[in-house]
């Protein structure tokens, strides 16, 4: 709890990277995943949104991007769909990867925006607690402080600090989500590439 109060008094100056003042995570903020970071397969520049026009690919993208199917099942589903001649397999692989890349990158961006929104609210909340602490200090510094008011403000700080601390822990947990999405995309991309070998 003392940590939470300290953070409040420091104005939640926790953003590690000055380029992104609303980014609270220890993980370095990388706004978008680049194709090259996860994919060494055929170039997908010419795919565009063509993956959305192929019902089988579109459905598979939706299922795999939902992150629910275990990876083993996902790998099997990928190898089941990437079939046919070499040219057909290449085309399907490109469509599937392009769809997953778009879907998971978008989802990751949404999550990151949400984290930043949440952190901004947390900063506002910390300012509110800080203001209460300053009032409390002022009261305590008086020669004859109003004890009932001191107790009231102490109780408020105590309660708000607990809420602040719970939210801070939640942020730490949520910070893992973009990483998990990136891991999922990498694993699926690798499975697609392996299905081409």
């Amino acid at each position, binding site marked *: 709890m003392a940590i939470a109060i300290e953070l409040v008094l420091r104005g939640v100056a926790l953003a590690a990277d000055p380029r992104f003042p609303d980014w609270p995570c220890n993980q370095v903020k990388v706004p978008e995943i680049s194709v090259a970071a996860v994919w060494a397969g055929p170039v997908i520049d010419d795919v565009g949104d063509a993956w959305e026009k192929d019902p089988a690919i579109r459905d598979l993208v939706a299922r795999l991007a939902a992150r629910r199917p275990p*990876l083993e099942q996902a790998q099997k589903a990928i190898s089941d769909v990437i079939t046919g001649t070499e040219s057909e397999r290449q085309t399907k692989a490109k469509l599937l990867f392009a769809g997953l890349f778009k879907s998971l990158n978008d989802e990751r961006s949404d999550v990151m925006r949400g984290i930043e929104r949440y952190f901004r609210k947390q900063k506002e909340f910390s300012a509110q607690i800080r203001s209460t602490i300053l009032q409390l200090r002022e009261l305590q510094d008086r020669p004859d402080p109003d004890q009932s008011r001191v107790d009231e403000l102490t109780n408020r700080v105590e309660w708000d600090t607990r809420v602040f601390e719970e939210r801070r822990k939640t942020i730490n947990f949520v910070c893992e989500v973009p990483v998990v999405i990136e891991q999922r995309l990498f694993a699926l991309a690798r499975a697609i590439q392996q299905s081409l070998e």
Partner: protein
Amino acid sequence: MTPTTSIRGFLRRRRFHFTRTRHCLLGLGVFALIGTQASAFTAYVSNEKSNTVSVIDTDKFTVVNTIKVGQRPRGIELTKDGKSVLVAVGDDDTIQVIDVRTHEIVATLPSGPDPELFTQDQTGKILYVANENDNTVTIIDLHRRVPLGEVQVGVEPEGMGLSPDGKILVATSETTNMAHFIDTETRRIVANVLVDARPRFAEFKRDGSEVWVSSEIGGTVSVIDPVKHEVKKKITFDIPGLRKEAIQAVGISITKDGKTGFVALGPANRIAVINAATHEVQKYLLVGQRVWHMAFTPDEKYLLTTNGVSNDVSIIDVANLKVTKTIQVGELPWGIAISQQ
């Protein structure tokens, strides 16, 4: 003390303590399904976050055991007699000794504070340890398990490479961006070579003609002439579609014949394959996320890489330069060592 009294006490005292919570990445690992045959060696992988060492049978390429070790295991090596695995557990300020037969921790070494990487002399009697937080290299008698002395080096030493004749130790300094050449007999620095930002690792060719030093932030490998103490070539990496910051050179392995070098490129998720004669990049192999270190099987048929974010180990077929399999290990795999059995 209850949280309430704690807060009230805090408000009364108005003394503030600041602790920055640190946490690492939680990840998913993957299994690939392509089978691969190999000779039966054993690989040991240090998992920095889960505080374990994964034991991999390189015949089946499966994890056969997981050994609990100290806090934050990173640097890992087999002793020269093959009887023990040494693992630096930085947050416990020691190096633990694991018996390869029982997989139990049987001893600790007086490594100095925060050991990260270390190297042995050819006889297996002397261990050189980089102490990142103490700006020193600690020298340990491995048989008697006592410190023999230390050498003051630049700020935050990290990479350690010993020349094949054992006469020169190269320690890289993360903050001063230098490779310090240390005479192992006099234990004095004989030369400092400036390299690119945040040097991480040093590896000699077996014939002693070159030492390669990787720079994480610089994203390069400096090829240094160990006699003239000059950078004779700087290897750079260019991967279309990847920003330069994503290409971070870390671990290095060079084949015994000195013909081919492999460099781990961290968040570029790739291993660069380098013609070690011309120092030109031949190929990039996509392995796992945040590839950090690597080790050959003793027959050099396979190269195993640790992938810190995807929590797995990739197997590279060295002859065909293909990634053939992926093995899930613990969280944040960092270092790897491979025994003969």
